[in-house]
């Protein structure tokens, strides 16, 4: 906001808005990201994450509010913003006919990187993502994971101060996702860089220093993953019964607990979940087929702020994404 703090803030957003015709995709968001932070935007598809990121990257003009990225105004100093940011988009933006090396070289030339530094920098970023040996190969022959890694390398080619990653691991297998996360961790160590990413994978959001949860164009919560989970406080209990609706009613009557029909059962939050289970069986007055108790995940955080799971919010997300979400849930249950 002020000139004093803007030097330590990588991103500074005030009441940013974007409307497309009648639809208000981003409805006034405000937040800031400290230099060196890994900041995550979490939310279902269509929550306005990508629109926000596009505005911060100067790819879309806001219809209201202001934002500074690397100390420069995204509308008035578009080129200055562009000089200081790296971008990895959701959709591939590589030239498949060119080799990895040619793609990076083109990028360096477009960004005006000093000629003498192009080769050493290229080697460094390619080695980081493990593609140095493949540098002479046309990108068309790369797998999806290799392409994403190359995009990350390219985004880093000009030593940006802020790296924007829009769903960097979407559609990748778990192994590749893990390796991409290790690059990001490595980046944090080796480069003076701020990472701004969007995701709707709950488990990935936990790698962030801070997370903003977005729903329907607004930020509904913003804090560290631990603090967000602490805000939910209680354990998450999910029960399956023959009649979930009446089970929910019984919960309200017997224990004064509010519950949600989600995740194929009745989900509610309660202090000391394990100790609660015996009481549940004794007092619910209804047969229970299964019970699971888990520590709250970020999905629960999302649910506690929005009243729905990310999966519900997306309605019809991709099948693989849903499967992934199940794994997350399964992981949380153990």
């Amino acid at each position, binding site marked *: 906001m002020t000139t004093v703090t803007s030097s330590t803030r990588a991103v500074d957003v005030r009441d940013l808005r974007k409307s497309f015709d009648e639809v208000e995709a981003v409805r006034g968001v405000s937040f800031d990201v400290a230099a060196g932070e890994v900041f995550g935007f979490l939310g279902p598809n269509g929550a306005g994450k990508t629109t926000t990121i596009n505005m911060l*990257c*100067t*790819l*879309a*003009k806001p219809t209201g509010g202001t934002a500074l990225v690397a100390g420069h105004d995204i509308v008035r100093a578009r*080129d*200055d913003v*562009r*000089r*200081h940011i790296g*971008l990895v*988009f959701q*959709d*591939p*933006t*590589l*030239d*498949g*006919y*060119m080799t990895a090396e*040619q793609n990076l*070289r*083109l*990028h*360096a*030339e*477009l*960004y*005006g*990187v*000093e000629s003498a*530094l*192009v080769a*050493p*920098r290229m080697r*460094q970023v390619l080695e980081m993502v493990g593609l140095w040996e493949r540098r002479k190969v*046309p990108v068309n022959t790369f797998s999806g994971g290799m392409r994403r890694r190359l995009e990350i390398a*390219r985004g880093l*080619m*000009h*030593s940006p*101060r802020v790296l924007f990653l829009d769903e960097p691991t979407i559609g990748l297998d778990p192994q590749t996702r893990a390796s991409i996360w290790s690059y990001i961790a490595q980046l944090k160590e*080796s*480069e*003076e860089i701020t990472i701004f990413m969007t995701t709707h994978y709950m488990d990935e959001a936990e790698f962030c220093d801070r997370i903003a949860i977005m729903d329907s164009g607004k930020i509904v919560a913003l804090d560290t993953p631990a603090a967000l989970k602490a805000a939910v406080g209680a354990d998450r209990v999910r029960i399956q019964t023959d009649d979930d609706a009446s089970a929910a009613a019984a919960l309200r009557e017997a224990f004064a607990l509010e519950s949600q029909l989600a995740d194929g059962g009745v989900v509610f939050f309660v202090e000391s979940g394990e100790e609660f289970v015996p009481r549940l069986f004794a007092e619910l007055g209804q047969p229970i087929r299964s019970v699971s108790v888990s520590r709250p995940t970020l999905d629960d955080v999302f649910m506690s702020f929005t009243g729905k799971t990310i999966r519900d919010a997306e309605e019809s997300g991709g099948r693989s994404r849903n499967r992934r979400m199940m794994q997350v849930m399964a992981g949380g249950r153990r």
Partner: protein
Amino acid sequence: MSAATAAPGEVVRVRVPPRTFRSELRAIKVVWGRELIRFRSDRMRILTSLIQPLLFLFVLGSGLQQLATASTGGVDLKTFIYPGILCMSVMFTAMFSAASIVWDREFGFMREMMVAPVRRSSIVIGKCLGGATVASLQGVILIALAGAVHVPYDPLMILGIFGLQLLLAFSVTAFGIMVAARITQMQSFMAVMQMVVTPMYFLAGAFFPVAALPAWLTVLNRLDPLTYAVDPMRRLVFSQLDISASARRVLDPGVSLWGWRVPAGLEALFVLALGLAMLAIAIVEFSSTE
């Protein structure tokens, strides 16, 4: 940010300098260079875009020769249509070059260029020059065929042809990029280009002398910008031929407007001006997109 504290061999930190005229030139050069890289790696395209001109030149040219001998004054019909074919090959290649901007958008690469800290005009100019270069390189293959249609290999003529091809390729690419700014789908882009370019090509007098045409065709011919590219090309080629004066009058009458024979240099200048105008429009259109 603190100064680079990394030890040698550790992190190489680079800096992106503010935009300058030189950095824009560098951007133009790299966008241009990419077109060449892609052209080199796409041998199939070089071959396929040769098929059509070669069919016209050798199959149509040889076939119609049976009918035409009497009226061409002993000049091989292939020789006559050769300048038109020189223009044709360049036009179609340039069209494909411009189409690459549509592919770039479809495959996302456009975005990589659009978010770079350079002017949109640099990208459009680089694209246009790249397309022109690639098309002219393709044209060289056809120049090499001059001997096969009884045209002598005169160094000055070859240079002249190359220059005219470059000019035409530039203008056609500029036209294509201008269209591509508005039309974002490959299929509609190709349809529009075919719809515009094919009639232009037929009207330009690539296959017939432009004097003594029916009135309606004369009007359309003179309105067709491509006429002013084909005509200087034909004059250039015919200047090297040893043919009778009557044959020259019939086959290479030149374009005249209201009885005034337009000089070849002016025709070339007109093609260039048109290309520059379309390039300017393309730049404006690309700069105004988000």
